[in-house]
């Protein structure tokens, strides 16, 4: 079921919400069980047969987790560690089969010239997320950080519908105390007001902004996939349109997940914090898909040695972490290249900081320097997104060649008439004027300009809602930008949110488009 669909908003959500709080008056356990059952239903709406796979994965991991806890309790840490290895292997094998088996066989066929086939394997929705969530749980259990002996609570932690399909990737320790709190089971109007507001801001981002700009990027990347050479403006417009689409899509999803959870009195961790405002690539990864970054750092980069074994090893660890992080997104070499590019960016970033430190240079904090750093980081991210979006390496190269200006510059024909002498001058200097199916002209530029203005100049949802604990462990900025844009439960804000929600729901009807992160 999609958050941005009528069955969810008008059916599933109100029923789940009302019955949850009705049951909670009587018995907290029954309410928690109800939330778990409805989460399974929410998942099964897409494909009922994969509910069994999800349930199987939960039962196996729960038993491994309790086994680890018992072994630790019996002072048998080596056995606990062996059980942890078994648990991680089980999860990775499940993920490998459903997500990477075809990829592996295809590459093997290519490498050794065979024609093996294993048939089509449908990727179960959210498997990457619930697998990582459970690996984190097992690792935390092995470190004695969590204790869980209640299957219903554990199943609720994994399946809790606001995060099940596309995250955030949760830690058991940050969720279960909230489900144990008595006040979670008491309907509170402040949670409802804050939750609805965050949810509808997210819906607006998804249906109006992300889905609105989506066709502009799709046409460019489809043309690239067909091998069509792209002029410079077309290629840049397509790459920027995708950059913005992905931003609003994922940002919208994260807001909706946080808002939904807040309705039930549970705060989710922040997962998205204006990443395009980042001033370097490390900063970007502290803002983009924050819970995945946290997972990769805690369960991959640090166990590999992190930065504890010298500069060279640190860079190697960074590269390995980012390559695997790229592969996590999908079984395609383009994702590996994307991860590799970010790995290189991070290595360069760390090397640059190390060099500055060695030379004794201080960090520049001038406004111009920060803006330049922000733009440089943004451009590096845009280039990497081309690999993330393209269906093949060749298609990505087509877009990048276009962005580099190899195919020249083309502009819409009607601009020539409007620009008079400037247009003639451009023609003399090699600019071609003709109508292109991959460049929509002024409407597209308006989308891009408006999108970048929102991304760079306005506060994000958490900043707007900062007075009301919008996310777990969220700390408001001491001097917020645009202080007048801070939410209050006033009539004026209610009227504004009615308009935002109305357009969010209106554009929802233009086709229930899946969130991009659902495919991972």
């Amino acid at each position: 079921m999609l958050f941005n669909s009528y069955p969810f908003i008008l059916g599933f959500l109100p029923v789940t919400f009302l019955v949850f709080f009705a049951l909670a008056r009587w018995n907290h356990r029954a309410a928690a069980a109800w939330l778990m059952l409805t989460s399974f239903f929410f998942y099964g709406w897409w494909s009922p047969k994969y509910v069994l796979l999800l349930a199987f994965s939960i039962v196996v991991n729960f038993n491994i987790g309790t086994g680890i806890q018992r072994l630790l309790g019996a002072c048998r840490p080596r056995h606990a560690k062996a059980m942890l290895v078994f648990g991680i292997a089980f999860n990775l094998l499940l993920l490998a089969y459903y997500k990477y088996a075809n990829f592996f066989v295809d590459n093997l066929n290519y490498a050794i010239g065979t024609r093996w086939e294993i048939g089509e394997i449908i990727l179960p929705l959210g498997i990457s997320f619930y697998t990582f969530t459970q690996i984190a749980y097992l690792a935390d259990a092995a470190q004695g950080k969590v204790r869980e002996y209640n299957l219903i609570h554990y199943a609720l932690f994994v399946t809790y519908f606001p995060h099940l399909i596309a995250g955030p990737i949760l830690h058991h320790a940050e969720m279960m105390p909230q489900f144990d709190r008595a006040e979670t089971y008491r309907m509170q109007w402040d949670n409802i007001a804050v939750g609805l507001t965050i949810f509808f801001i997210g819906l607006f981002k998804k249906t109006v902004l992300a889905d609105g700009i989506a066709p502009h990027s799709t046409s460019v990347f489809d043309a690239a996939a067909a091998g069509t050479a792209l002029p410079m403006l077309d290629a840049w417009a397509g790459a920027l349109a995708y950059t913005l689409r992905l931003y609003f899509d994922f940002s919208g999803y994260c807001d909706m997940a946080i808002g939904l959870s807040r309705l039930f009195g549970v705060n989710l961790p922040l997962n998205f914090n204006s990443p395009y405002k980042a001033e370097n690539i490390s900063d970007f990864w502290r803002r983009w898909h924050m819970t995945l970054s946290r997972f990769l750092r805690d369960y991959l980069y640090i166990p590999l040695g992190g930065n504890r074994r010298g500069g060279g090893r640190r860079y190697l660890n960074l590269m390995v972490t980012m390559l695997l992080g790229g592969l996590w997104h999908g079984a395609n070499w383009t994702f590996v290249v994307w991860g590799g590019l970010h790995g290189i960016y991070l290595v360069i970033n760390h090397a640059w900081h190390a060099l500055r430190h060695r030379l004794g240079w201080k960090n520049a904090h001038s406004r111009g320097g920060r803006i330049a750093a922000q733009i440089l980081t943004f451009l590096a991210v845009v280039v990497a997104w081309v690999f993330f979006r393209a269906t093949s390496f060749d298609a990505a190269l087509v877009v990048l060649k276009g962005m580099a200006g190899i195919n020249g510059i083309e502009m819409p024909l009607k601009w020539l008439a409007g620009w008079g002498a400037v247009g003639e001058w451009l023609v003399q200097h090699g600019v071609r004027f003709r109508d292109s199916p991959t460049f929509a002209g002024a409407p597209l530029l308006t989308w891009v300009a408006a999108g970048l203005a929102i991304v760079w100049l306005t506060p994000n949802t958490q900043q707007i809602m900062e007075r009301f604990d919008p996310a777990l462990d969220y700390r408001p900025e001491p001097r917020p930008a645009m202080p007048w844009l801070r939410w209050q439960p006033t009539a004026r804000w209610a009227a504004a949110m009615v308009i935002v929600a109305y357009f969010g729901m209106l554009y929802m009807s233009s086709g229930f488009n899946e969130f991009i992160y659902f495919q991972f």
Partner: protein
Amino acid sequence: MNEAVFARYSSGLVIGIALLLFVTAVFNRLVDPFQYFGSPRIAGFNAVKSRLRFFEREVKPAVVKREQPEAVILGSSIAAIGFEPLHPALTHEGRGKSYNFALAGAPWEEVFCALQYVLANTDAKRIVLGMIAQPMPEVGCGHSLAKMSENRLPEVLVSPLAIQHSLKTLRSQDPREPQTHTAEGRYLFFRDDPQVEHRAQVFFAENLRGKRTCTEDRLRHSLDESSAPLKLDFTAPFDLSGLERILEQISGLPIALRIVFYPRHVVGAEAEYLCGEQELRWLAMYRIAQFLEQHPPAPPATVQAWDFQGYGPPFDEPLGGGVLTYWQDPIHFNPVLGNRMLDAMFGLEPEASDPATGFGYRVDSATVAARYRWLANQRRAFLQAHPETWDTLMRLVPPEVQRSPSPVARGS
């Protein structure tokens, strides 16, 4: 902060959204720009509808499922324009419902899936399937059927598209504004618009551009070649798995299926000779007829294939000089002609004494060669009498179609 403040805010938010959505839904329901509901039609308010063509593939499946017509017309824009669903043979003399479910621009794959949808969702007893004579492969319809079965109510009631087209509908209530579809789904296209040649140019530009086989030389030599008998002993693969599937599905059911190969105006028919495609048409008709004879469905189901192509009236109606009676352009025929075709297919027109020479020919493998000869003779006689036909055609096709260096030797 006081709980009551949050309660007021939350209630106001939910009620405000619900109210706005409700008003939007009522507005779009009343205007009904896509003819999804069919009523009310209020003169001066929403009686003239011209927006269905923007939402045809979403609305028509829903209407056909809701209305449960006894007769359904399937095909591309040619069937959508040319076949009147209110024809007495389809409505059972006005006693039953009928719907034109043909979709503009639909290729065979889409028509096949539309038929699957009709068979799965209605109890249609008479089905007219318009098509170009070509292979009829079976295609996977899972995605198409899912799309056609989607609940479109939210889009029709509360979407920007619905609001936009409702407003346009309100603004276009001038009686001179064209209605684009009848309530029964027939596409009115450019009815009463005299720009026939322009539309033909657009059509040929879209369909012939890039076809290297289309040359004026080929057209010139086609008359000599057409005196040779039709060769039917070809062994090339010809996929009729889709037809086989359809026959299995209707077998034993009270369904009369009429497959009709689209006829063309003489200028449109000559375009096939220009591109060397005329023989393919005959070979396809032969293979389809042969397959039907070898695999008839179990009664009471009946299947017939029909061809109406001719070179005399009404296929030679002059294209210039205003509104035509039988044709929209060289490809799309009007219901005046479509009704005659339906008469013939459903037995309302007396059968010709010689099946190979009458208006309408029920295609069968034994007589297809005779019909081919008859049409070749008719064509030769027509072109001798109307040498300007090729000039008209060459004026309408895109300029890159290869011209002969010398004047066309007409009628030789």
